[in-house]
């Protein structure tokens, strides 16, 4: 997810960050900081300071590029098995 943060821990004005995971903390890639509290956000603090979210689901894309083909030769035919995705 991409979040636009308003004034608070992450910015004094406006700032975009990437959320890559959530458990007991909001796990963040912050292009402007490596501070622990900004990379591992307290959920209440995070939600209070997030203005907009954009959710991006790349799992289908990753499945596609990670598809494993099977290549072999049979009866003099070179064969590539390609799962349809």
């Amino acid at each position, binding site marked *: 997810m991409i979040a636009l943060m308003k004034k608070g821990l992450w910015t004094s004005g406006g700032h975009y960050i990437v959320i890559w995971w959530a458990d007991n903390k909001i796990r963040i890639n912050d292009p402007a900081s490596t501070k622990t509290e900004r990379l591992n956000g307290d959920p209440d603090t995070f939600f209070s300071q*997030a203005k*907009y979210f954009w959710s991006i689901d790349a799992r289908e894309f990753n499945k596609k590029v990670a598809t494993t083909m099977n290549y072999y030769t049979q009866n003099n035919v070179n*064969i590539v098995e390609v799962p349809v995705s």
Partner: protein
Amino acid sequence: MANQPKKSLKKVNYCNANFFGSYDESKTKFTLPVGHLICDFDLDLKDASNKYCSQYCHERGTFNGTKFTFDSSKWKYDNKFYNKALTTLQIINNKATISDVVTLPSNLSYAITGIPVMLNGNDVKWKDYVKPQGWDGSELYATYHIFVGIKQEPADTIYVMGYKTSTSNMIYSGEVYKVFKNLGFRDVIKLDGGGSYYLNAANTTKATNENRRINAIIEFGSAAAGASCPYTEPTVTLKKSSKNTSGVKWV
């Protein structure tokens, strides 16, 4: 869409695909598809050849974002396949089918026309079935060819195959029907071959010598081509805090 010399693409795991026409404008060579084609189109338009390719694809087909559709039934000029029922591999909802279509259905994600060599488990008749589609037989001489087949319909897997034929008309002779029948196929179409022939998979390349400019390619997904998703399926869903929701817009 590739529109590049077949050996010059900065890719691995692909083969030449559709039949095409070669063109030359202002001494710049480019290619355009022959027969139905639905493909991804993300050519670098700074390249002069790609610019012409794009220009004429816009004239002949339709674009939806980066998805290009050339419906052969809608392009009459100098098109011997115009309004013909063409045997076409079609991908819809992640399933593959091969059937004859005059006009492409609107809900396909990919499509490519080929020469039928085997349909519904049976051979096809050159004179009564294939020739009337518009093919003239020059596509079928003894050389290396790319084929695409399915073993059931609809299919979860397509089989891309390279094979060298030895008869002057692989359909009339029944040569390829026998080969693919023995391999358990239901439907098989022949794509381009000869000087266009190129098959790269698993670090192995099969190709004829000429570095001919080809039109479209089929890319094969590969574990080596893209790292798998490093994260497991999420088990936690981000939810609005009951206390602090002001100003938060969920999209």
